[in-house]
């Protein structure tokens, strides 16, 4: 109990004093996870749209692949991305292993199926006739898809939240492909694990608290956006 309280107060102290190392870790976590979320959205949303409104052979198979991907263990992703980025691996020449870019790649792999799966479910909630109706009012093909997404925007925000949550909270892949290098690839999760390993439970709890706080703030912001939209609609 006392340890948790200590962790909480040291979290506040680190933030209040803008401890440079903590700020660096916080910024890296946000930068990596937000970038991964944006990539996941750019890929996952169209895939979700394709599955939800498309009619093509292999649609069910793609859905099964996406749903399996939603449960992808980060460590497995970390392993495969590492193998890909090894110096002796296929992308070794790019020297991306142990860089924030590698972490973004790994987290995007984790977040994309989450975004695709949840947006599929969200977009399937829209009446299939809705798109026909929008076309029947003069919307172009792309505009009609946008209108379907707009109709599902509240559940789609959940896809964003799940993607970001999956990215910022995972530790297995971040450690494997990032290496937890101080000042370069040390993120909130990997720092918390390291502090735990070193027996610095106070610091570990502090990082955990900051992680929790960030996740909460981002989700809160998105939830407020949801609520505002629906209040606005009324």
């Amino acid at each position, binding site marked *: 109990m006392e340890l948790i309280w200590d962790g909480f107060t040291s979290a506040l102290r680190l933030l209040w004093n803008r401890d440079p190392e903590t700020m660096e870790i916080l910024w890296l976590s946000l*930068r*990596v996870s*937000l*970038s991964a979320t*944006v*990539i996941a*959205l750019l890929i996952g949303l169209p895939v979700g749209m394709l599955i939800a409104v498309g009619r093509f052979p292999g649609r069910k198979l793609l859905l099964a692949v996406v749903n399996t991907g939603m449960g992808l263990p980060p460590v497995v992703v970390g392993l495969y991305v590492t193998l890909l980025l*090894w*110096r*002796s691996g296929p992308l*070794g*020449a*790019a*020297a*991306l*292993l*142990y*860089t*924030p*870019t590698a972490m*973004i790649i790994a987290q995007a792999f984790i977040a994309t199926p989450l975004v695709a799966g949840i947006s599929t479910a969200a977009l399937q909630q829209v009446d299939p006739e809705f798109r026909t109706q929008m076309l029947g009012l003069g919307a172009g093909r792309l505009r009609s898809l*946008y209108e379907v997404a*707009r109709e599902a925007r509240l559940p789609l925000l959940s896809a964003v939240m799940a993607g970001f949550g999956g990215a910022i909270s995972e530790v297995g892949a971040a450690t494997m492909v990032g*290496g*937890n*290098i*101080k000042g*370069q*690839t040390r993120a909130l999760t990997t720092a918390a694990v*390291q502090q*735990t*390993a*070193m*027996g*610095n*439970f106070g610091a570990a709890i502090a990082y955990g608290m900051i992680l929790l706080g960030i996740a909460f703030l981002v989700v809160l912001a998105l939830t407020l956006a949801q609520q505002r939209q629906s209040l606005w609609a009324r």
Partner: protein
Amino acid sequence: MAPRIYAGCAAILAAATLASCGSSSSESSATGSSGSKTIILATTTSVQDSGLLDQLVPEFQSQSGYTVKTIAVGSGQALAMADGGEADVVIAHDPETEKQLVSTGKATQSVLMHNDFVVIGPSSDPAGIKQATSAADALKRIAEQQAAFISRGDKSGTNNFELKQWKAAGVTPSGSWYQESGQGMGQTITIASQKQAYTIADRATYLATEDASGLAILYQGTADMLNVYDVLPVTAKAGSRVNVSGGDAFAKFMLSPAVQKEIGEFGKEKYGIALFDPDAGQTAQQIEQELAKAG
């Protein structure tokens, strides 16, 4: 409505682009191989967790202009990385495995520093190992009492040291009292603390976690508890992308008199004693003999 959403998307995209630009500009120096200014240092966790590298690596970076990527893993994995050419320089404390690697010509080895292993456990010492006469004897007593013991079980230097001692004791440890954590040193100490079990740790990690674990040193100080750390720059034989000159530069830096002096001072402020003894220029046998003389 729509333009606003488009604008929002554009803003997010711009932010992401900025973020990735930020990362790529700091990594742009990482491309290329032998002429590269980035080196990968694979180190055993105990050295990383002690905080020594947090002090030395920035000094090396500012002196040499290299960027160091420190990857903390068990000695086994660190040496495997060197074997595959995935690391440029290694800090390890696993003499047998190191010897194998050096024999392939993929790395060269120099003694860097040493400290010692300690057997730790609950201060009540249920197996009575305080009276032990050697490391092997201490483990034998634990096995006889079937007192709980946590092994790293991860092919790390510490794990290999432990297994060597069981062999010396003539015991094949098995049974519910002998558990493998599969974790790093720090976590293994935490598990031992929670289970009130014995374990073997390097002194530096033990000192760093002493307050949190509450475990006591129950056996220490004999020559057979020696823990020698080596620095091993990787050669081009391990892989075409190995940064040979960078690895060599780091090894030279670590063995330089100024840095050796720093290693000898490291930890005194915080723990009252130095965590490592610098050993540049010596061999493991020389250190052992010296210790035996002193002991």
